[in-house]
């Protein structure tokens, strides 16, 4: 099969590491060739973070290039907008509607763009936006946004059965948080 590309974008500290770990586990267990790529170090200090997840028959490049992402999974609206050029024609954005002001906005040098969700849609992108923070809090912790997003993403992977996702959650999440994360996953999937 041709390589499929999932980009996970957000702000440092939002939980994208677990999301990519879970996807990596899930896709490896399905027998795909998989590459997951992220950048550590200075960019993690509250800056934009991007993780690439690629899978298929044979994956070469560890990175996703412009116009290649089949999915953009976004923890924050501005970060979804920032990565729009990476979305493949016909690609799908799954995003949290959360907005986190970056430093230029905090200091008043720039404004957080108005009606950003509408602007992203105007570009022609297919956007599935939901209040993941609220759903995560309903599940029991604001930190479970990553599982809400993955639950929503799972909705688009019709060829991967529910049990496979559940197995990945069991394998990647500490046992004491498993129930909370399962609940967050379900809330996202059925939102």
């Amino acid at each position: 099969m041709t390589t499929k590309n999932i980009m996970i974008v957000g702000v440092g500290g939002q939980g994208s590491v677990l999301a990519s770990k879970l996807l990596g586990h899930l896709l490896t267990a399905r027998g795909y060739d998989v590459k997951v790529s992220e950048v550590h170090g200075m960019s993690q200090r509250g800056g934009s973070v991007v993780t690439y997840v690629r899978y298929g028959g044979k994956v070469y490049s560890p990175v996703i290039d412009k116009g290649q992402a089949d999915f953009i999974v976004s923890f924050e609206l501005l970060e979804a907008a920032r990565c729009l050029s990476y979305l493949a024609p016909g690609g799908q954005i799954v995003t949290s509607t959360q907005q986190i002001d970056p430093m230029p906005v905090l200091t008043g040098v720039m404004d957080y763009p108005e009606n950003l969700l509408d602007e992203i849609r105007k570009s022609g992108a297919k956007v599935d936006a939901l209040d993941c923070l609220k759903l995560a809090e309903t599940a029991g912790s604001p930190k479970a946004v990553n599982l809400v997003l993955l639950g929503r993403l799972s909705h688009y992977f019709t060829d991967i059965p529910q049990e496979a996702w559940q197995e990945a959650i069991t394998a990647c999440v500490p046992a004491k948080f498993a129930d909370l994360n399962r609940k967050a996953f379900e809330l996202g999937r059925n939102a």
Partner: protein
Amino acid sequence: MKQLMQGNTAAARGLYEAGCSFASSYPGTPSTEITEEIAKYDEIYSEWAPNEKVAMEAAFGASLAGKRSFCGMKHVGLNVAADPLFTVSYTGVNAGMVICVADDAGMHSSQNEQDSRHYARAAKLPMLEPSDSQEALDFFRRAYDISEEYDCPVIVKMCTRIAHSQSLVETGERKEAPARPYVKDIAKYVMMPGNAIKRHPVVEERMRRLQDFAEVSDINRVENGTDQSAGIITSSTCYQYVKEALGDKYPVLKLGMIWPMPDRKIREFAGTVGRVVIVEELDGFIEEHCRALGLRCEGKSLFGCLGELSQNVIAEKLGLATPSGLKLDDSVKIPARPPMMCAGCPHRGLFFTLNQAGCTVLGDIGCYTLGAVAPLSAMEMTLCMGASVSALHGFSKAGGKNVVAVIGDSTFMHSGMTGLANIAYNQSKGVVIILDNSITGMTGHQQNPTTGLNIKGDPAGKIDLESLCRAMGFERVRVVDPYNLKECADAVKEELAADEPSVIISRRPCALLKYVKHNPPLKVDGTKCVGCKSCMKIGCPALSMKGGKAHVDATLCVGCGVCEQRCRFGAFVSTAKEGE
């Protein structure tokens, strides 16, 4: 079963399987995780050294004593360790010795994007370059055999995309390497002129033999293509970009050993294809070598020497179509999201103090380099590890006034002490501020000689910074709490006015350390906040203006109280008493 493994983890696995039993490194992105992963193997002694030169010399000592050894570092770390590197090339090794250097094309977390391949040529040492996690494991394992067979350390060069990407890996078992007895050999190991003169020809002969190895080894391989009109020579992550962009279209010569290069193999390959295209990041290292062989080739004229390449760049430069992504309306401006100091970062209060003091701030390498970013904007120079202290001396001697150096605890141990010795010895004025957050922060919390813990988190020796500075001859050494703005301001003012050099230790542990207990978040009393934005000058990510009033993000705030000290109206109140 194959497992998904980060390149650095796979590198550690390769070292483990090869029977490595000694590792000494200094953390540096993107190399850090190799040694962190090694620390999980009980069979390997591992440590964080104060700097890369110490790490390399320690690894050499272990090799001399008969144990397979390792040291790892980022590209700029190899500059620090360049001194032993060039001469260990002459002495050779006893047991195998492997050096990892990890480059950072694109400067994701570095102050330059130097191309470390030049070191292999300059120091006359073999260098391997893996292109994914499996090769990282295999190459690190193989490096020991090469090291022992050719009696030299072997450098394995990683890059950000290999170090920090995960791909599938098949692991093997550890094979213990029997200790090689140490044998006294003054002619081989004492590099004074009379001996070194005799070792240089040995080095040249070794490189000739290594070139023969490069010609026949499967580490350099040709992959066939369907179109001989062009052929690609490449290595490392660029190989993956080439295959992604071109598939099996053109034949590829993939170099796993980047130095010495297989001249005959390169010539033969070039003879079978029309156009020779060299795909490599940063400098034209392979390209220059091919030109020296008299080959016509293209490389840097197509791809340039800046930053990272990618599949699209390669496709585009070779005339293939590339996909285009979607874009927002031009009227929508997307603000950048640069990294910033965390909420509760102990560096913030100190940098705010320096901003207000209006002094010149010479900086150093670490999280606190973010002190240069608005709104704090309180750093005017950053060069390399330790340069703040050394440059302070030169700046002062040249007549510069009202100047301080800021350097972290780990960076001070790495390269700041020698600069401080120069100030003490050659007597210049100026204030050295050691930002002691009790950890190596930027690379993800590694211990260092001032923390009292070793790489495994067990109790270790602890260097006392105050005693150290006093022992060097500094009479004025004082400790401040960076959460206390007045204390910081008084200290900076007094020490700048002093007639002799001084050291201020700004001490508070990194807010992200697990053992640090935080205060409850603050909140804003809307009846008191007048919207003056005075608190916004500290650049805290937990603070924003909402409806003309300051607002605290309770999920980020750790109650450090720095904003509270800025507010003349007492608008910040603790949430601690809520619910009582």
